[in-house]
Structure formats: C-alpha cells, structure tokens
C-alpha cells in the first residue's frame, strides 16, 4: 500500500466505494472523536455507544456524499455525529408549547452570501464569540457543543425562556455580522 497512513478524506472516498477495510481504518482513526461528540451531547454512556454505532452506519451509507475540499473530513464526520444526536434529542422532546413565539421570521429571500471559507478565516468565530458578552457566548457554545435547548439554556442561566430566546437571537445577529465583516 502507499507509504504513511491514508488521510481521512481518502478513507472516506474508499468507504464510498464499499471498501470494508477502509471503513475499519476510518473507524479506528475517528471513533474516539465521534464518541466524544455523542457522549458529550447525550450525556449517557449506553446511549452514546448506541448512537456511535448508528453514526458509523450512516457514515457507511453516506460516504459518497462527502465532498473533498468542502468541509474538512473530520468536521464532516463530527457533523454526522452531532446531527444524529440532535435528532435523537429532538425526537424525545414534545414540541414546545410556545412555538408561535419562536415562529416569527421574515419570509423574504436574503441576499445569497458568498460562503467560500478560507481555512485561516475559520478561527474568526473564536474572536467573534469573544466579542459577545461572556454568558451569551456560553449559550452559543452550549447549544453547539452540548446540544442544549433554549429551555435548558434558560434554566442554566436562570432567566425566563423568552428572555433566553431574545438574548440568543440578538447574539446570533451580532455574531453573524462579525463573521461576515
């Protein structure tokens, strides 16, 4: 075989071609990271293990949707794991009672944004998060990294649910402005 370990993008490409050995290699290279994701979001070891299995089943089934040069390959895998966990959490929760409060959004089409992301630019989110008030930045991190819902964030920060929604939406607008500045 080639010298040196094949990189993750190449392993994903070979998994797309139904190469089982590549699948095993990919698992060995990436499962600790993805288990870290499922464990952190689901906060239950048995559920996190089960979810990890389901995530790799999806990776096998969807490997041919990975696009080299778009996402970094590990970010793509993290996204598969994270989205799977969030699906599980959403399925568990009854629909929020105050959906109407959440549903007020403009329906007009926004200007298309050029979303070509330079790798060096990606660290910008750290700077932009730092520009938010500390507890607001915590909420963004908590939603992304821990899968916290508005409810959980409101409880953790000791504010009413609607206050949390308002806070976080304003923060997201600021964050968006900073990210595209």
């Amino acid at each position, binding site marked *: *075989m080639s010298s040196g370990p094949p990189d993750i993008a190449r392993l994903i*490409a*070979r998994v*797309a071609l*139904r*190469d*089982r050995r590549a699948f*095993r290699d990919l*698992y*060995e290279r990436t*499962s*600790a990271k993805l*288990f*870290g994701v499922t464990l952190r979001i689901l906060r239950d070891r048995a559920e996190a293990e089960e979810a*990890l*299995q389901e995530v790799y*089943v999806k990776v096998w089934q969807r490997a041919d*949707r990975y*696009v*080299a*040069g*778009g*996402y*970094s390959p*590990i970010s*793509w895998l*993290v*996204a598969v794991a994270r*989205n799977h966990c969030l699906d599980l*959490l*959403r*399925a568990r*929760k009854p*629909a*929020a009672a105050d*959906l109407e*409060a959440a*549903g007020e*959004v*403009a329906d*007009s*089409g*926004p*200007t*298309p944004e*050029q*979303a070509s*992301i330079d790798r060096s630019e*990606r660290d910008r989110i750290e700077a932009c998060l730092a520009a938010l008030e500390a507890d607001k930045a915590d909420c963004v*991190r908590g939603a*992304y*990294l821990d899968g916290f819902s508005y409810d959980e964030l409101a409880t953790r920060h000791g504010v009413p649910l*609607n*206050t949390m929604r308002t806070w976080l*939406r*304003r923060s*997201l*607008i600021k964050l*968006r402005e900073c*990210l595209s500045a």
Partner: protein
Amino acid sequence: MSREGESEAGEGDRVLVAEYALGLLDAGEHAALARRIAAEPALAAELGLWQARLASLDAEFAEVLPPGRTLPAIERRLFGAPAPRSGWWDSLPLWRGLAGAGLVVAMLAVGFNLLQPPRPDPQLLARQLVAALSEQGSDVSVVALFDPATGSLRLTALSGPSVPDRDFELWAIKGSAAPVSMGIIPAMTRSDIRLSPDVLDGFGEGTVLAISLEPRGGSPSGSPTGPIVAKGAATPI
C-alpha cells in the same frame, strides 16, 4: 413577546438558519426549515457559512475511546456475520492487489442538493446547480473508479434530480488538451463507462474528470456548453 422588531429583509431567515445550525429548533421547525434549505440556495449558502465557522469549535469535543465491542457491533449491523463477499467490488484482496496495480480514483464534487424535488424550470435548476456548487457542506459527491484491466470507469450513483430536457455529460481533460466527451451519464444509478481509445490514451493520474449540464443528448458542439457541476482530478489510491 420575543420579537426582534423591525428586521431588515433576510435577517429573520438568517437567525432561523443560525438556530438550525446550532440545533435550537424543535422537530417540526427543524424539518420545515430543512425543506426550505433544500429549495432555496440562499438559505443553503447561509447554512454553509454557519457550519463552516462553527466547525472550528469541533476541536473542543474531547476524544473518548469507545469500548472494543462497538466496531464488531457496527460491522454486524452493516454486513451481517460472516460478511458475504458479493462480487469483485467487495473483495478486499482484490482491492489491495489493484491498489498496487495503479488503480485510479477520482473524487467528483457534484454541486446540487440531493433533496431537491424535480422542478419544472430547467433554467432555475441550472442556476441552483451552480449556486450550490460554490457553497460548502451540502454537495453530493460522485466517486469514479478506473479499472485499467478493463479500461472502464465505474461511477457511484450520481444522486440528484434529473433536470428536464438536460443530460449530464462526463468529460476527460488531459493536461491542456480540450475536454474529450466520455458520454452521457445517468443520474441516480451506478454506472460503468467503457473508455474509448481516444480517452484511454494518456488517461491516468492528473486527468481531470468533469460533469457538465448539457442539452438532452449531450453537447451539440463536442465541447462542454453548460455549467460544470462537478470536477475532480484522478489520483492513485
């Protein structure tokens, strides 16, 4: 209640997409927005921006070694036990052998959304294809495998909508030479393409494969006329 007051056009959608990317929407809202994102390239681009930026937080997920039983459990779920070898495609010894023999794989990034429902307006779809291509994370990929023994190219399913009155045409570009057509390729199904002597001559590492959207039946001029929806260079595995 918690409204933002006077939003300029698009701001509400931007917030909604950010909430979607963070996972803050409930199941119903999430599914509804997913359908809009599939249909509206501007929303898909907005999502791509958030996903790419937020991904830099991924480093904060600590690695935790899963138990040893997990991989065998996954392989049982996927392959049953013992794993059947269904044809040469799944044969590992063959893979290893072919890899040594200079097998070539190309990654083709195909720029359209898998969930796109068929549209009546080909002009609109063509624009969407192009728009989606410039945006990250939501594309579909095709992988092409060249088998030098048979001189054929095997493509994984080109998943995506068929475009009314349009066909996808595959091209080989060798160095600075003009693209050579490799024919029309079907959507939604794996396909084998036998390379013509023209294409085979000099085909190998560095050859660029591209897929363009063409009038039904293929390019009338013999050169790509439509937008390139996918492109990738052949590399050895």
